[in-house]
């Protein structure tokens, strides 16, 4: 009995002992966990504060939960900020790519950090672009040393171009780099030349004959010899005709410029060719030049301003006659191609130098001043032709070889064709000019 009691007693003690040990262990673990947790909280709170992540009202206490939600919101914020930044960068890159300029940024070793699409033309380039690339590298080296640089490069091509390269040092980010901007200024320069030449030329064309008339009249006043007086009077007449023609052409040109919407007549292509050729036949006979008409049988109807079209073609023929040698041959041609309606005038005369080809359509532009005095042109003919082409949503081009002759080609869109059935209601077209205007693709002015 005693033994049994002792066994039971010792069993109870063991149970209690085990219980106490477990209790103590749990207490220790709890204390430890709490400490660890506190340390984690303190550490996290500290780093969040150091990173400058502010606590919000919602997670004002420093429990682990609220800390974690702070982290969550901070990550979310930075993610959306990153997304926004990416979008901004993408947008800026797009803006750079739409620029007509080439832009590139290089680091201190000359490696490209950023560039737009246009700049791609000068990387691993060949021919003229390789020279631009070499200049860009040279100026960038200058700017990496802290000096801004700028230079203009004249390229003979072909095509002939002028390119401006500008480089600047960059240092905002603390990293040494430089930016290069490459701009093609060919067109701008051409326009500047057109403007300055126009002012010089118009004053020359108008002032010279008027000055001459004044002087001749003055001499005439003091002249007794009827023979000399007669000669002087005739010179006055010639000069005044010249001024008259110039003014007439100028007026015609401005009329065409203003009248750009009036495309009302419906005319057969062949009849335009015939009319233009007939007008110039006397002048051609005088110059011993023959005019051959090709396409006079074309009866396709063309919606156009008849007066303007005939004026354009007579101007082209007039030029062809002036610059043909005696016994020369001129071809005026009309045809309907699958793409467009084509009028062309070809001569076999002296031709136009390559460098003047893109300027002959300017007002008063003269390839050869001396010769133009002799031929008596006003210098406005080709400008008129170009305006007529633009008014009809077409183009005019010239191909020429010195010593072999020139071909001027006037191309009009096919949409001007095929109003043959509607030929009769000529007046209806005029009565509603807007319908006309809308049906025509407008060329750039």
């Amino acid at each position, binding site marked *: 009995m005693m033994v049994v009691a002792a066994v039971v007693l010792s069993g109870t003690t063991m149970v209690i002992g085990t219980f106490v040990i477990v209790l103590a262990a749990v207490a220790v673990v709890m204390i430890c966990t709490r400490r660890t947790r506190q340390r984690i909280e303190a550490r996290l709170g500290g780093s969040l504060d150091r990173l400058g992540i502010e606590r919000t009202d919602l997670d004002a206490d420093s429990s682990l939960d609220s800390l974690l939600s702070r982290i969550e919101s901070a990550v979310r914020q930075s993610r959306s900020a990153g997304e926004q930044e990416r979008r901004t960068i993408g947008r800026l890159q797009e803006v750079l790519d739409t620029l007509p300029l080439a832009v590139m940024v290089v680091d201190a070793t000359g490696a490209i950090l950023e560039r737009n699409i246009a700049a791609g033309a000068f990387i*691993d380039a060949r021919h003229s672009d390789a020279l631009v690339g070499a200049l860009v590298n040279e100026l960038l080296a200058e700017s990496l040393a802290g000096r801004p640089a700028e230079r203009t490069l004249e390229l003979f091509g072909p095509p002939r171009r002028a390119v401006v390269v500008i480089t600047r040092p960059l240092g905002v980010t603390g990293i040494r780099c430089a930016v290069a901007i490459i701009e093609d200024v060919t067109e701008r320069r051409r326009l500047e030349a057109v403007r300055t030449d126009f002012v010089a030329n118009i004053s020359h064309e108008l002032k010279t004959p008027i000055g001459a008339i004044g002087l001749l009249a003055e001499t005439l006043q003091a002249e007794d010899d009827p023979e000399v007086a007669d000669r002087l009077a005739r010179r006055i007449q010639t000069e005044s005709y010249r001024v008259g023609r110039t003014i007439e052409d100028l007026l015609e040109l401005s009329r065409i410029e203003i009248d750009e919407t009036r495309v009302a007549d419906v005319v057969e292509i062949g009849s335009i060719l015939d009319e233009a050729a007939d007008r110039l036949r006397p002048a051609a006979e005088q110059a011993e030049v023959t005019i051959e008409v090709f396409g006079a049988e074309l009866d396709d109807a063309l919606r156009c301003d008849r007066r303007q079209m005939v004026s354009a073609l007579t101007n082209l023929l007039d030029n062809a006659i002036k610059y043909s040698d005696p016994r020369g041959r001129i071809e005026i041609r009309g045809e309907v191609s699958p793409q467009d309606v084509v009028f062309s005038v070809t001569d076999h005369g002296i031709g136009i130098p390559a460098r003047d080809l893109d300027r002959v359509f300017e007002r008063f532009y003269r390839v050869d001043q001396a010769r133009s005095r002799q031929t008596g042109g006003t210098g406005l003919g080709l400008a008129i032709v170009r305006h007529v082409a633009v008014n009809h949503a077409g183009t005019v081009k010239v191909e020429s070889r010195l010593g072999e002759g020139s071909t001027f080609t006037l191309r009009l869109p096919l949409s001007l064709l095929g109003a043959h059935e509607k030929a009769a209601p000529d007046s209806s077209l005029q009565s509603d000019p807007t319908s006309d205007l809308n049906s025509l693709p407008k060329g750039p002015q």
Partner: protein
Amino acid sequence: MPEQRKSFHQELAEIRDQIVELGALVREFIPRGTDVLLTGDMGGALSLIDADDEIDALTLRIEEQCYSALARQQPMASDMRSIVTAVWLTGELERSGDLMVNVAKAARRIYGATLDPRLRGLIERMSEEASRLISLSLDAYVERDASLGAALGDIDDALDALHGDYIEAIFDAHSGQDLGLQPAVQLALVGRYYERIGDHAVNIGQRVQYMVTGWLPEQTGAARLRARTSFSVVSADEAAARAAGLDGSSAGEPDGSVEGDR
């Protein structure tokens, strides 16, 4: 830029880029010199003659870089051929630039002479053709296009034909009293300069072929020579006569001969 050790292939790429730059400079010279000639622009003539120094300096720089690469890297096979070709090309290109300097100098010598439109037109066309040939030869070089390189000889025929027309036009102009003897001779030389530029482009094409395939243009000529000399066991008199060009037969002048422009 900080001095850094460049890999051999970087160096090869650098040499290629510089050849491209040299070629671009020379190609610019052609329309520029033509412009000087046709407009009688003496300022332009002087600036072109001065600008040739730039070409010479770049030529020297490329050559030195090639020699140093050969010495330091001791390249083999296609790398070796690339460098040797680059050295050859500098010579061809530099010479083409010099020819345009000659055109500018001719423009000075004939200053004041009027050229009739036909002559001017032909000069413009020869210039365009010469510039096109140089462009194509450089395209062949950069793209390592041996077939284009080989085609240049035939493409050059157009320029040769123009040169023929041009000489005829000079005769016509001179006999028509429109052109004095002195400018006529100068102009004939100018035509020759353009024609030579075309030949240099053809040479570049052949060098490109060599670079890509290892084919040597001289091999055909050398083979012919070997064949000739091995047959020359005939009499010594005949051999001597042949050497002196008294042979009369055209056997010594194989047609379609390769440009021997050394």
